[in-house]
């Protein structure tokens, strides 16, 4: 279980997180929604330790994430970045098997390649794509390679940062289905950031809306449409009228 308690983060004069409280139960898929620049990615990066919160507590299974063995902590995570964040200098299979080629999870080269090709197949890519470089792939394919890399070491927890941004609706649907299948199949805890409502309905067990640096509403995805929360309603309907200022 991941818990954030009263997490604050400020960049200069910009108070991005102003006391975030959120619980993600083990084995569930939490989707965080909110407008651009509301601190969704910052919250996610705080959990991973990529950004240090100014105050507050973040725990994983009751353990403070800032304490203990960092490598062991990160080995439990997989992460799909918004732009894929694939390493340009490495072929696709080495991107996927990156964690399996070094460090505590190191495997023999042939075995790592075999696992990479299996994971690529899992996300709908053929073994022929394995030896290409990321720049030779389309945006959708790069996203899928990023997804294969995120699941390569069978992590307990997977984070998805804007998994469908920049993709056409069909490819978005494919990625959403893949994420849902992988999360269910692996029994992983998932935390997804998006402002794509189709993704929310496809991926989420629970939804949290981040606005003005705090969690404005959280609950099961089935209750989202009848929440009665004016912020969430405006966001879900995409209306320009409501408590959220259209021009921020």
């Amino acid at each position, binding site marked *: 279980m991941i818990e954030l308690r009263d997490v604050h983060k400020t960049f200069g004069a910009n108070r991005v997180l102003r006391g975030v409280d959120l619980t993600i139960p083990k084995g569930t898929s939490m989707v965080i929604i909110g407008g651009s620049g509301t601190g969704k990615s910052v919250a996610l*990066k705080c959990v*991973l*330790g*990529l950004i240090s919160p100014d105050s507050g507590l973040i725990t994983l299974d009751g353990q403070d994430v800032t304490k203990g063995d*960092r*490598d062991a902590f*990160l*080995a439990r*995570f*997989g*992460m799909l*970045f*918004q*732009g894929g*964040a*694939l*390493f*340009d*200098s490495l072929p696709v299979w080495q991107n996927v098997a*990156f*964690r399996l080629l*070094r*460090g*505590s*999870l190191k495997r023999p080269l042939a075995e790592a390649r075999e696992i990479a090709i299996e994971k690529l197949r899992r996300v709908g890519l053929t073994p022929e794509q394995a030896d290409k470089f990321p720049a030779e792939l389309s945006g959708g394919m790069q996203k899928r390679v990023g997804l294969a*890399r995120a699941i390569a070491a069978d992590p307990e927890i997977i984070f998805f940062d804007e998994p469908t941004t920049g993709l056409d609706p069909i490819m978005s649907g494919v990625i959403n289905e893949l994420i849902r299948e992988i999360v269910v199949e692996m029994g992983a805890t998932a935390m997804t950031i998006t402002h794509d409502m189709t993704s929310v309905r496809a991926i989420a067990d629970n939804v949290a809306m981040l606005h003005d640096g705090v969690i404005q509403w959280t609950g099961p995805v089935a209750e989202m449409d009848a929440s009665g929360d004016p912020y969430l309603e405006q966001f879900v309907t995409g209306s320009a009228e409501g408590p959220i200022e259209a021009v921020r």
Partner: protein
Amino acid sequence: MTLLLSPLAALGRSVLAGLAMLGRIVIFALRAFSHILRPPYYPREIGHALLQIGWLSLPVVGLTAVFTGGALALQIYAGGARFNAEAVVPQIVAIGMVRELGPVLVGLMIAARVTSSIAAEIATMKVTEQIDALVTLSTHPMKYLVAPRVLAALLTVPLLVGIGDVIGILGGYTVAVQNLDFNAATYLQNTVNFLELRDIASSLAKGAVFGVIAAVMGCYYGMHSGRGAMGVGRATKSSVQAAAILILAANFVLTGVFFSV
């Protein structure tokens, strides 16, 4: 009074900011060395950096050195002729290349070629979240990106300086023998006899220091790049500027250390 003091205050703020920046760079360099000394090591990354910084810099170093050596021979001959000292061409070319021009020009060429490339590559990795991805894959960016490059520069730039020194002397030799009617054997004999071990040691030591400066500056500015294309451009420009200035400043200090007595 305020009008008089404000330029001084601005100057003071700039000096303090400059010193703070220097402090951050020194701490960054020390962290890089601590990662060079501690496992895990990434042999493939080290090999790649050795190839990029050392082997692929050879053409530009060789061309810079040969033309500089040739021009130096012509200048010394023309200048020496004013007081009947044309015969000192081999000695001055040798000392000029080995003590000063070899290391400084190679250092500056490395700053132009390697520092810019390191800064642009790492800055692009930063803005495309590849560095964050490294962290989430349990790989320390200092160990994976910075340490191999600094180690490769430390090992290869002294070699490049040594090669540049030899090529520069050969450039001077070719011009002297072909255009200025020097005797080939005498020219080489004078060169070898005149150079001391201290000259060569200082040249290689300067190369090592300049190599570290070039790599550290590229890595530092890359890792601290701002967002977007402008951030990458600014990091690249700043890294080359800083590397060039620090190389020239370090050259002055090292020359004083080696030859002030």
